[in-house]
């Protein structure tokens, strides 16, 4: 089985998101879309400023796990479609690193599925973020 790729090298651009939205104009059974975007924060950690996050993943495992999450969410919610994109490599502060996009006939399914998908991605996908400090140094990101 060919697993759907979710990884993009570098940041996810606003134009990519716009194209993705525009593609749904032909799906006239959709009444509501929900989109979550993760953006890299310029956190201040003691006297250091985060200027980027460098993402790595255990890619094969992440894609298998994402496939399971997707199947479970499609079983649970009446969705028309769901698209997931996550960055690998360097994403600068202010840039988008995660794009989750769900669509359904009525809004509730799209909203609930999107939120559940974001939580699952953060908790279950083997992805790691290295917060790169201005100048030099880094620390490994921790999800709350």
């Amino acid at each position, binding site marked *: 089985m060919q697993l759907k790729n979710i990884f993009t090298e570098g940041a996810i651009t606003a134009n990519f998101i716009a194209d993705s939205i525009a593609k749904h104009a032909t799906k006239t059974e959709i009444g509501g879309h929900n989109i979550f975007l993760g953006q890299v924060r310029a956190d201040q950690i003691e006297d250091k400023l985060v200027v980027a996050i460098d993402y*790595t993943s*255990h890619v094969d495992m992440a894609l298998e796990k994402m496939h399971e999450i997707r199947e479970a969410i499609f079983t649970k919610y009446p969705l028309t479609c769901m698209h997931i994109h996550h960055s690998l490599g360097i994403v600068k502060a202010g840039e988008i690193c*995660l794009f989750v996009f769900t669509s359904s006939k009525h809004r509730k399914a799209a909203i609930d599925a999107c939120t559940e998908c974001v939580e699952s991605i*953060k908790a*279950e996908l*083997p*992805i790691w973020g290295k917060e790169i400090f201005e100048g030099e140094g880094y620390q490994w990101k921790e999800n709350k």
Partner: protein
Amino acid sequence: MKIEINFYGQLTDKTGCSSFLMDNPGTIADFKKLVIEQYPNLSNAKFTIALNNKIALDNEVIPENAKLALMPPFSGG
């Protein structure tokens, strides 16, 4: 047959290594003991082990040609 081990995230800082091969040690518990002997910095590290892309339990027997992954807590998104 050797099995393949990969380290991820901050574990690579602790081991100074991202990948190596070893003889099949038997179970996941056996493997855990050996890998900590080889990389003592891992003894106080939080990690889970994936066996062929699935989270593995201590009593699982490692099959031939297995791929093991040592993974610190996830921080995607």
